[in-house]
């Protein structure tokens, strides 16, 4: 699975889909697959990989098919808000595609194809528990994935983090921002910080986990394909 890359990709996607897409919808879509599965994956599942990414399990939630279902549901609930529906679809799809990079892969073509697709760049580590997963991810090419996503965002889509972009592109698409501001009597700077919140979270998560794993706990880097070496090879269910 990817960690901070999920937070960074939303802002990069805004660069492409901004005028048609609700950022809040994108966020809901990006969080959706893990929201439905993550707690059980770490704390309840006998076979975390199968439960999270396979079948039988909840692997179908990380798929393009589920992105369509979630977008259709959003369209219905929001009484035809296209920007929200498109946002949920794009965010959910991006999450599913990014999750293909680890060894467990994702059932991206569900319901037409029930097997996970995997690129196998780094080992799926949820079976190690949350801390072990963080150690595995930030020691492997997952670390490089987060770093590359951050770099690409800052080079090619940094404008999406600016106040100007928020006021002229993000906010006009979605009336929810005005509602949030009025409901909580938020000053503009707090609303802008709320918009930037997941970038902040992704950045601090990337830096903090990297420091904890390598400087505090002393784990080595293993930036080879299918790393890290200390996580047992992934066993298909």
């Amino acid at each position, binding site marked *: 699975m990817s960690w901070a890359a999920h937070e960074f990709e939303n802002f990069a996607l805004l660069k492409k889909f901004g005028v048609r897409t609700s950022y809040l919808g994108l966020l809901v879509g990006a*969080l959706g697959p893990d929201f439905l599965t993550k707690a059980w994956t770490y704390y309840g599942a006998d076979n975390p990989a199968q439960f999270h990414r396979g079948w039988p399990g909840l692997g179908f939630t990380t798929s393009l098919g589920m992105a369509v279902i979630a977008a259709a549901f959003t369209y219905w609930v929001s009484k035809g808000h296209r920007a929200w529906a498109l946002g949920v679809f794009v965010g959910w799809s991006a999450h599913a595609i990014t999750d293909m990079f680890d060894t467990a892969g994702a059932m991206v073509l569900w319901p037409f194809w029930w097997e996970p697709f995997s690129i196998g760049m780094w080992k799926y580590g949820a079976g190690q528990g*949350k*801390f072990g997963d*963080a150690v595995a991810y930030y020691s492997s090419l997952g670390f490089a994935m987060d770093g590359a996503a951050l770099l690409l965002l800052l080079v090619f889509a940094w404008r999406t983090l*600016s*106040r*100007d972009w928020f*006021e002229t592109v993000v906010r006009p698409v979605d009336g929810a921002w005005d509602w949030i*501001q*009025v409901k909580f*009597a*938020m*000053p*503009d*700077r*707090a609303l*802008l*910080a*709320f918009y*930037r*919140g*997941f970038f*902040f*979270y992704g*950045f*601090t*998560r990337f*830096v*903090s*986990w990297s*420091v*904890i794993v390598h400087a*505090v706990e002393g784990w080595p880097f293993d930036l080879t394909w299918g790393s890290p070496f200390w996580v047992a090879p992934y066993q298909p269910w």
Partner: protein
Amino acid sequence: MSETGVPTRGGGDEPGQPSLERATHGSFRELFPAEELRLYGLGTAVFIALALLTHDVVLNWIIGPLFITVWAWYVPVLHERWRERRRR
């Protein structure tokens, strides 16, 4: 200013600069770019320090975004009050 007490949108003379009214309006005051950079930089340092002290307790998708929202909301207010007190 709208009827709800929430400032309405509208920039200053230069792009990216708040209007004079918004830049001086108490707790709703908008920040100049340099102030904003300092605010976010300090917020990032504080949150990373908290994360290192607590490991994964604060590193979650609820606390992280809420932290920076509350930080950007109230730290300038507290700073302003502190400066007022010092002036007196």
